[in-house]
């Protein structure tokens, strides 16, 4: 000890929102509200980025921070549920922004590449609809993974293997699509039959050559 006085950390105040960094707590809150299917909205206070308002009924959000500048390490200082429904005043001026874009970013940036808490081991996944990729910032490995999920039930491990993507990146994508509620989950779906080896497919891939030609060699 050098004798310097260090003030003790203030004790947390009971009943207050625990300050959290990152988006895992937000993802859990959103998923919990969406599952309830009740007219309930959310307000999140985010340090330096102002309040983030979500209207689930209209599948919309309002936030002063553009998604192009999505703060991966945002500090959340408060979370509030607000009653919705036909008699409630609008949370913000509608139509707002499409909630899918926000869910995409939150899903990709939560759970640190581990499975979202609402997913179970042993499941396979398949898309129920494609995300609107022209509106979501994405890389080419995500396009490949989405194309796999659009055509077969696969586990996260299979998804990573078929596309040559790291497991945590595959998991982030599954988390995001699942938070957007555009993945169907099955514990019974059998492994998909692959008729074309992935190595051979990679060699012959027009996608691979074209993306380089078009300046999209990421992922």
């Amino acid at each position, binding site marked *: 000890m050098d004798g310097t006085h260090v003030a003790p950390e203030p004790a947390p105040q009971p009943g207050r929102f625990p300050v959290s960094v990152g988006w895992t707590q937000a993802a859990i809150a959103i998923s919990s509200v969406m599952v309830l299917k009740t007219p309930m909205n959310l307000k999140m206070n985010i340090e330096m980025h102002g309040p983030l308002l979500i209207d689930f009924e209209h599948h919309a959000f309002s936030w002063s921070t553009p998604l192009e500048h999505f703060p991966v390490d945002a500090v959340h200082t408060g979370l509030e549920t607000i009653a919705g429904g036909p008699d409630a005043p609008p949370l913000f001026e509608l139509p707002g922004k499409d909630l899918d874009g926000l869910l995409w970013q939150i899903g990709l940036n939560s759970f640190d590449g581990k499975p979202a808490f609402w997913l179970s081991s042993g499941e396979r996944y398949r*898309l*129920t*609809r*494609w995300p*609107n*990729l*022209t*509106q979501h910032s*994405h890389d*080419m490995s995500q*396009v*490949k993974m*989405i*194309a*796999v999920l*659009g*055509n*077969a039930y696969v586990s996260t491990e299979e998804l990573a293997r*078929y596309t040559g993507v790291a497991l945590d990146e595959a998991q982030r994508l599954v988390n995001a699509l699942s938070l957007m509620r555009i993945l169907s989950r099955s514990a019974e779906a059998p492994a*998909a*039959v*692959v*008729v*074309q080896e*992935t190595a051979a*497919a990679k060699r*012959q*891939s*027009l*996608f691979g*050559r*074209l*993306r380089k*030609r*078009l300046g*999209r060699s990421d992922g």
Partner: protein
Amino acid sequence: MAEHVILFTGPMGAGKTTSIQSLSEIEVVRTEANNSERHIVDKETTTVALDYGEILVDADEKVRLYGIPGQQRFNFMWSILKKRAKGMILLVNSDAPDPIGEMTFFLDEFRELYDRGGVVIGITRADVVAGPSLDDFAKALERTNPGLLIPVFTVDPRDRDQMVNVLLALIANIEMRAMFGMITEAETA
């Protein structure tokens, strides 16, 4: 030389010509004439023959982009070109009188392209008018073509980045469908 033909289809005014212009590396060959259907689309000229553009992948490989006329009186061209195509980008303008009906019509006409390749649907002018939502299009697809999972995106045909995303999503989807045996490699070539 290896060639891959991609068709751009959809009703008049959906943005087929503009989309090809956004993607093509050569000056697009365009043939236009007076619009005889101005009661449908208020546009002085419209495509009545092929639009053609291309992307050179390398010295021995190119992607040929064909925009084909949206009017049904030119459907003799549709049958010629769809036999050669690997995939299709179907563009539907959100401000058309019946955009979902247009999507269903063109998808029916070109269904064989889905079966032996792939299709992506691009909804244009979605930011201009409050037309059907993407969910509406997806539900209509499920109703008319159960089991078909076709990518549906909003797109601005003038935006090259967006058009590149659409084209690459189409190619990725075709290749994954081949990988899982939903189409055969011989048929996609």
